[in-house]
């Protein structure tokens, strides 16, 4: 390499370090993103645009949910749709059958999903690697069959919210769709702030240590099982609340929509595209995945059935080649390039 070339490379690298995302504190990036996106409903009068934004922000939260257990703890769950469905059904059932406001139902749905997640974790965390993934997928598919045949919750026919409640604030059923955007925006913000806190917390460090080498972590005195249970409970709670929000937006819930196979994969896709075990990963993943899904679905469905998934497959292949850790890459937790401890506040901007 010539001296000139080396000089240019160093200069470019220096400029990159000074102007790149990693030189900006992560908290600033998060706040700037959410402040900027507040204006989305005013950018276009198009329902399609707003609907896409609503789903994108809902799936930011759901991506975070999966990332907690899949990205941080390294447990590749393929059954997260189960927690999503439990949250959705709990919110819907409490309101439709017992007139419990969804403001309470969302929390109840999250808690019930967390209980289900912990129960699932207690059974499956003894399994390692792909056996865990298979077990979680089987649990979700099994639940799909149960829900399809459970008459009390509508079985295959599903449950519909009373249409007279639309516009009723108590029913959390808004006539103005922009309100749904702000609800999903708040959900995305809350989950992002939670994961931001988790990222530099003791729990977050332990989870990433378990992800890197579970046996080494256990030898260091970290109880892998119990920390994974923590992560599963938190992750499931978020997924449950997300499921409840989904039901509130759709005002209808059925097993086909909540528990279809692809739903399980969607949560994983968002985190994988964005970056496993990072705060910004699910945001980037959801903002790529949802608009692409919506536009390819509407443009390519029908006679071009499946082509949208071919596009996603291609994106994933390219990512796996050029960005195997996702678009937002995670730096090593212990002994990173700067030598700073990852749980120090100074290190937050590097570890995004």
């Amino acid at each position, binding site marked *: 390499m010539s001296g000139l070339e080396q000089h240019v490379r160093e200069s470019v690298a220096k400029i990159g370090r000074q102007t790149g995302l990693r030189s900006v504190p992560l908290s600033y990036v998060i706040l700037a993103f959410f402040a900027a996106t507040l204006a989305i409903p005013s*950018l*276009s*009068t*198009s*329902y*399609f*645009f707003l*609907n*896409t*934004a609503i789903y*994108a922000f809902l799936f930011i939260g759901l991506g975070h949910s999966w990332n907690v257990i899949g990205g941080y703890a390294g447990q590749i769950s393929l059954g997260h749709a189960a927690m999503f469905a439990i949250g959705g059904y709990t919110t819907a059932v409490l309101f439709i059958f017992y007139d419990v406001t969804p403001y309470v139902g969302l929390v109840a749905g999250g808690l019930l999903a967390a209980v289900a997640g912990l129960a699932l974790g207690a059974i499956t965390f003894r399994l390692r690697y792909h056996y865990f993934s298979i077990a979680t997928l089987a649990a979700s598919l099994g639940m799909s*069959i149960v829900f*399809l*045949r459970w008459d009390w919750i509508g*079985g*295959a*026919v*599903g449950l*519909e919210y009373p*249409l*007279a409640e*639309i516009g009723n604030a108590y029913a959390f059923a808004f*006539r103005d*769709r922009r309100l749904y955007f702000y609800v999903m925006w708040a959900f995305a913000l809350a989950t992002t702030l939670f994961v931001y806190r988790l990222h530099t917390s003791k729990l977050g460090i332990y989870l990433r240590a378990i992800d890197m080498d579970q046996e080494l972590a256990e030898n260091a005195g970290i109880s892998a099982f119990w920390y994974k249970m923590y992560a599963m409970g938190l992750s499931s709670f978020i997924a449950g609340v997300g499921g409840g929000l*989904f039901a509130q937006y*759709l*005002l*209808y819930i*059925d097993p*086909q*929509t909540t528990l*279809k196979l692809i739903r399980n994969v969607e949560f994983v896709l968002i985190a994988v595209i964005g970056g496993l075990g990072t705060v910004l990963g699910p945001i980037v993943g959801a*903002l790529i995945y949802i*608009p692409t899904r*919506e*536009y390819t*679905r*509407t*443009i*390519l*469905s*029908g*006679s*071009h*059935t*499946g082509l949208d998934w071919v596009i996603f497959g291609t994106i994933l292949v390219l990512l796996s080649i050029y960005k195997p850790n996702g678009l937002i890459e995670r730096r090593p937790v212990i002994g990173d390039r700067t030598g700073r401890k990852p749980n120090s506040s100074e290190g937050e901007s590097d570890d995004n």
Partner: protein
Amino acid sequence: MRFPSTSIRMTDDYGDNRVVSRRSFVRIAGTASAVGVAGCLGGSDSSDTFTLGAIHPLSGDAAEMGSRFQDIVSAGVQAVNEGASDLEPLAGAEGEGLPGQDGTEVEVLWADHQGSSDVARSEAESMVLDDGVDVLLGSYYSGTTEVVSQVAQREGVPHICGTAIGEGLTERDLDWFWQVPPHTGVKGESMFEFADGMNEQHDAGLETVSIIHQDGTFGTEVANSMQRVVEESDFELALDTISYSAQSVNSLSTEIRNIEQAGADIIVHAANVRDAVIMLEDMQTEDYYPELMLTPGSAYLDPSLLEESVSDYVFSGSDFAHDMFEVHPPMGAYNSYSEEESGTPFDGSSIYAWGEFFTAIAAADRAESLSSDDLRASLNSMSAEPYVAGLPYPVEFDDNGYNQEAFSFVVQSEDSQLETVWPFDQAQDDAMTYPVPSWDER
């Protein structure tokens, strides 16, 4: 993405049009919005066109049927826009465009709900709010129909459903929803009136029933309605209703043996095409056949199933039979037109799409204007004679928006043909084969 059906004949062309249509272009432009550049989507309502938004399954298990819907409705659009006076009394056929609306042209936009309620909702709202459709049509599955009708209710746009037959769809206090075809309860009543008639006129000795269904929305709804009808009739259930996973079933031999042991005279099967074939082939393997295989139609009326020899002699509730044109000549003319113009003849499912479309046309043609309120008033006061709405029975809605004149025939399949066997006075001589020959006699 949606595009006008006026420009299409066949499914392959559909895809090409999709790429270059104006709305596709707008949508593609909208992609830029999603990545940061605010787009300017939507707002494409055209005041000089009567625009219908058809939301149906165009992919997945029911894609072929959705494609037939498109073909047949494209012929209907052509009949209205270009005129087809030979088809009178079909609504809108006597002139170019809608005669009652100064010749306003008709356009149908299509969307694929993929069998998912969330997709159906997105498409319905996009059609109403971005594309400005005047009427929503669809959407075959009851679950997706529910969410589409929610959108119609919220936005005050008529939703005319001619393809979903769920019994409870009109029992939801909706102001903007009208259901044209016989719902599952009416179908069940026709089927068991036919069975009653078989006992009276053919001394069939039918007493017991077994209901078996796939566990999806359609199968579950049909089974629930059939169970209610049976319990209110003189027939008895031979055993509890059987359900199975529509997605994973590979054999129904065990279920068939259970039905055989229970001694059911009639099997009612609500199925998709795939599991209907499994059911019949397994019955052949088990060398078993009930006195009556009596189905609510759907898969058992599908052309692809009728091509299978195992489907011979099955009885089904249906709005369509190949010999119905003898009794209802205008339906024969409509069918010929559709086949000639779109390449697709009527069948047990697509006739519903034809009726759905022409009910909308009949309402629009008679409305004072194409405003939502006037369309609604027109639908509420509609009293269309047989054939006007493209169906062999009248269309007149009750207070809930259900077509109280909807009627289901009973047909029998043989040699890929469906022949009317009930009402007995509409059946051709020797149309029915009964008793049904055993497997080794076929």
